[in-house]
């Protein structure tokens, strides 16, 4: 079972596009992939795969209801198929914005009702519980969680359920990278959820070969983190993904990308990255 969470501390560094392209890469390598979108923002993975139609329907069943043990329907019915064969998605829902409040309420009820006075309802173990209870591991080969770029309950649930992280980073600007910061991030997560977290790798995204970026890349290479691939800046390709609501593979196959030939190299990198990740789980 291949399970991981894509996470970056800053938003907008290409976390979701990386998750989406990897999902497609795994699927094309013959795996059944389930993406779990835990990002309540509009521009999320569910938008990219066009399965976000129920997100603002407050009466719709959604993942949060299952996490707090108050489902309105079958868990299976939350899972949506996408146009991309082999990639299914549990879509995001606006209720994720209040995940913390909902989990705290649920915890209060569970703890009140528990015979043991000291019982503490494990808030960050709920995603794993839901996946296990519904035999998701029996139906999928790969699970990718894509939580929003802020620490909190969604991230903790994602990490606890997947145990491994892939860290897309931007080497400059708002994603300004510090290796120390990455170390602290991983250590913080481990303390928060009480497990050892496997770091599949740090993936520089939007690399531009400026001096600053070159220096940062060298530092990163010298660190303990694995750097399976580096993605050069692909602004037009990424923009086309959002415009056409598809993966990089979809953009290139439908010839919506003027630099198609040149960009095939980018797809190869996603294939390599997906293969490398799969290798870590063997």
């Amino acid at each position, binding site marked *: 079972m291949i399970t991981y969470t894509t996470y970056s501390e800053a938003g907008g560094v290409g976390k979701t596009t990386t998750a989406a392209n990897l999902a497609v890469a795994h699927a094309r390598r013959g795996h059944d992939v389930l993406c779990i979108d835990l990002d309540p923002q509009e521009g999320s993975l569910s938008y990219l795969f066009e399965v976000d139609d129920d997100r603002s329907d407050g009466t719709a069943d959604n993942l949060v209801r299952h996490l707090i043990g108050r489902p309105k329907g079958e868990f299976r019915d939350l899972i949506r198929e996408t146009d991309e064969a082999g990639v299914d998605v549990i879509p995001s829902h606006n209720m994720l914005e209040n995940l913390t409040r909902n989990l705290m309420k649920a915890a209060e*009820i569970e703890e009140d009702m528990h015979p043991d006075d000291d019982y503490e309802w494990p808030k960050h173990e709920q995603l794993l519980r839901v996946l*296990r209870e519904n035999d998701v591991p029996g139906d999928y080969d790969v699970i990718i969680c894509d939580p929003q770029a802020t620490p909190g309950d969604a991230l903790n649930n994602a990490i606890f359920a997947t145990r491994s992280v892939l860290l897309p980073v931007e080497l400059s600007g708002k994603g300004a990278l510090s290796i120390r910061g990455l170390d602290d991030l991983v250590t913080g997560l481990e303390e928060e959820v009480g497990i050892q*977290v496997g770091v599949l790798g740090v993936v520089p995204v939007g690399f531009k070969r400026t001096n600053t970026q070159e220096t940062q890349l060298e530092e990163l290479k010298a660190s303990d983190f694995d750097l399976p691939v580096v993605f050069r800046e692909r602004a037009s390709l990424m923009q086309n993904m959002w415009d056409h609501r598809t993966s990089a593979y979809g953009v290139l196959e439908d010839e919506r990308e003027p630099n198609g030939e040149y960009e095939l190299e980018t797809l190869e990198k996603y294939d390599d990255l997906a293969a490398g990740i799969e290798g870590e789980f063997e």
Partner: protein
Amino acid sequence: MKSGAGDDPFADDPVEPDDGGAEGEPEVPAEESTAESPSTNERADRRGQRDDRDQSRGGDDDATDDTDDAGNSDDGDDEPTEIPWVLRRSRVKEDRDNVHQFFLRDEYSAAEDAIMDAVADELDIREKDLKKLDVREAMVATADAEAIAATLSEWGYEYVD
């Protein structure tokens, strides 16, 4: 921190399997709770009748019990029985609201995969089309108490008072 993949979250002991959600669900609609009771009864019935069943029917679900079970032949045939269950259902978990955790030692997890492989072969279908839940239920349906007892004895049950 560890470089590479973390532990397999689905391999180790589950986290409090019955914690949270399962208990105390004030918001479960009434129809859901009532819908469960007949199937629970049937399950209890079925436990007693299982031995009489032939193997090919062993995997049938609760919903068909009243129509294809010889013991209940006087029941009204209000449901067509021609379409086999695995084709009729829309999801593999349909009617399987009885959730069980399956704890396996590594070697038996591997053995299960081998069984999946062999069963798919036997049925002449792709392994991908074979559902683990069906295989597990069929294992229960076709289980041989004597063989199970023999294996458990080997594991040391013979020394248990």
